[in-house]
């Protein structure tokens, strides 16, 4: 298999000391497409390797960091407005994923790009929040009836809402896995130790370290599309490294919480592939858990095939038949994990029908599009 250069660098950053221009070109392309350029910069800095980066490449790396910083400013603004709203409604909201890493000031946030603000709410308060958000200019993104029904009946979140002026997207969840999943998580167990942050005037709430890590793992290993999979794994890597330092007996905390919410499998995968793909050294407790769980796992060969092939840069320079097959397997697996087969088949059929009938290209929504300043846009309109 063509191992991606990006993974080799993540495993052993010092190899950049011997890089040729060709190596740098390849790394730049793979890291950009995996949205991990700012992340690389972070680890190069940590390893005192910045001097080995050619100026031309450094410009790209710095540009990515500038974009991340800008995104963070925007997100903080949104969070401030959202918190005011939640306070007024006397609602407890917990920030998840990228937003949480940023608010909790985790080192992980420094090189991390994300596009949506994820929030966890009590299910019975969602309707109230949705109405209040609509009054403040937030609009539901999925207007198609089927999508609306799918989200509301089977999912763990409501359709994403986008601000009509600012373009920011928020994802409101009431659970972290689809509600039709057989293995629905008792969300109260996960949020029991949620932390109120006091670092700024924002006063936001985020999950406890163990719940934060476990949520990130559950999310990654239930995901059907793994385009950003490597980044997800690298998130876990940095989270684990940080919390092992800051928490006492973090591995034990994780095992305990995973057992409570019956998500040992996600924890097992997280540790297994962190060790296998990113060469992370596991604690004794973690290693014992992994060894023990491995013995009870039957279809590990398939799962290994999927993840060892998909946790890579998703780029034209890394594709192979293995990659394509693994991607298809992961897609089906992701859907199977999310909903039982009797619901899944009609959903996928309907989805592909809708996509066939739709001729317009769906643009991904990113926060800082320079729409109005798109040079192409000007060129077209330029008269005279």
């Amino acid at each position, binding site marked *: 298999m063509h191992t991606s250069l990006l993974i080799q660098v993540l495993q052993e950053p010092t190899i950049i000391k011997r890089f040729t221009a060709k190596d740098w070109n390849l790394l730049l392309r793979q890291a950009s497409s995996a949205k991990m350029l700012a992340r690389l910069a972070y680890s190069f800095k940590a390893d005192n390797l910045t001097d080995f980066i050619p100026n031309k490449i450094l410009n790209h790396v710095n540009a990515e960091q500038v974009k991340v910083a800008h995104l963070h*400013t*925007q997100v903080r*603004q949104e969070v401030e407005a959202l918190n005011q709203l939640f306070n007024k409604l006397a609602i407890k909201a917990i920030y998840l994923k990228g937003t949480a890493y940023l608010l909790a000031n985790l080192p992980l946030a420094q090189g991390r790009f994300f596009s949506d603000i994820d929030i966890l709410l009590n299910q019975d308060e969602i309707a109230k929040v949705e109405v209040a958000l609509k009054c403040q200019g937030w609009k539901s993104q999925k207007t198609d009836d089927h999508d609306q029904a799918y989200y509301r009946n089977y999912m763990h979140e409501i359709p994403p809402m986008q601000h009509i002026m600012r373009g920011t997207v928020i994802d409101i969840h009431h659970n972290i896995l689809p509600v039709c999943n057989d293995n629905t998580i008792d969300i109260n167990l996960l949020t029991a130790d949620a932390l109120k942050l006091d670092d700024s005037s924002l006063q936001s709430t985020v999950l406890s370290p163990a719940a934060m890590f476990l949520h990130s793992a559950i999310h990654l290993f239930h995901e059907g599309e793994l385009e950003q999979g490597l980044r997800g794994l690298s998130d876990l890597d940095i989270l684990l490294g940080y919390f092992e330092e800051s928490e006492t007996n973090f591995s034990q905390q994780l095992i305990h919480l995973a057992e409570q919410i019956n998500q040992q499998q996600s924890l097992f995968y997280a540790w297994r592939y962190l060790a296998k793909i990113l060469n992370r050294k596991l604690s004794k407790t973690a290693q014992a858990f992994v060894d023990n769980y491995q013995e009870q796992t039957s279809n590990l060969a398939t799962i290994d095939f999927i993840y060892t092939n998909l946790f890579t840069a998703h780029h034209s320079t890394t594709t192979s038949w293995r990659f394509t097959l693994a991607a298809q397997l992961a897609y089906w697996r992701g859907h199977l994990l999310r909903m039982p087969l009797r619901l899944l088949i009609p959903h996928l059929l309907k989805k592909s029908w809708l996509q066939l009938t739709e001729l317009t290209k769906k643009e991904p929504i990113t926060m800082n599009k320079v729409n109005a300043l798109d040079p192409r846009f000007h060129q077209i309109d330029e008269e005279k």
Partner: protein
Amino acid sequence: MKIIKVGNLLTKHYDEHVIVFDPNTGQTHCLDSNVNEVLNHLPTNKPYQSSQLKQFFMQDCANDEKTMLNDYIQDMIDNLLQLKLIRAYSL
């Protein structure tokens, strides 16, 4: 009402205007120099009574000017609040 100025503002002074960059919101504003004078008078570290602020600027004014100036400064405060360059302070 107590108000407080947000921290870390960057300013560039020109004849009749001041350009203010607010790193908290990422916004840049072009303010009238008068508005900037009000802004300058506010500390960033402790909340300030808006009535006290008005008194400071009206101390040497005739009575009929005072009503006008009072409204004018209130407008400026509202404006600055809207731009998020100052915040209403509450416990």
